[in-house]
């Protein structure tokens, strides 16, 4: 199934690029949601306070670090799971 021709590979590449854009937008949107929900709770003003700005900034940094760490773990776990499944099959 993985034996794609050149033109099939190109088509797949194009689709994966679209997917990456979409995934990035989802990640960005999730970050805004999460950090806004966690950090902003005072609606006596219409501008972000110093405290809220600081919280959002730390939230973004921490969330990126979380993403990075989990992506590393995910890649490792996914690889070892794939290897295990292939051992079962053959």
């Amino acid at each position, binding site marked *: 199934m993985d034996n794609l021709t050149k033109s099939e590979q190109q088509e797949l590449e194009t689709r994966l690029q679209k997917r990456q*854009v979409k995934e*990035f*937008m989802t990640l*960005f*949107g999730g*970050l*805004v*949601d999460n*950090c*806004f*929900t966690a*950090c*902003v*709770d005072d*609606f*006596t*003003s*219409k*501008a*972000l306070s110093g405290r*809220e*700005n600081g919280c*959002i*900034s730390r939230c*973004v940094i921490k969330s*990126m670090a979380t993403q990075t760490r989990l992506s590393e773990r995910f890649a490792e776990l996914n690889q070892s799971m794939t290897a295990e499944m292939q051992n079962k099959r053959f």
Partner: protein
Amino acid sequence: MSMFGFGARQPTSAEKIAAVENELKMIATMHARMTKICSQKCIDATYREGDLAKGEAVCLDRCSAKFFEAHQKISDQLQSQSQAMAGAGGGGGFGI
């Protein structure tokens, strides 16, 4: 492949339409997220009243302004972080 969107070649019709569609989609998604969050933050969920209370309405106005500010701020922060990491690289970017 080019760093500047479609590069030198003319974008196809499908690409032009997809680009406009994507931008509108992003705006719609942001709108939906804001509506969800600001409703949760501002609206009394017991629904003893059907009308928006004055306090709720003011809260929605401020919440939406803060949401836009946070959205912009986070977009800028990611952009400067990704530039710090990637060096010059342009193209993609995080801005709305």
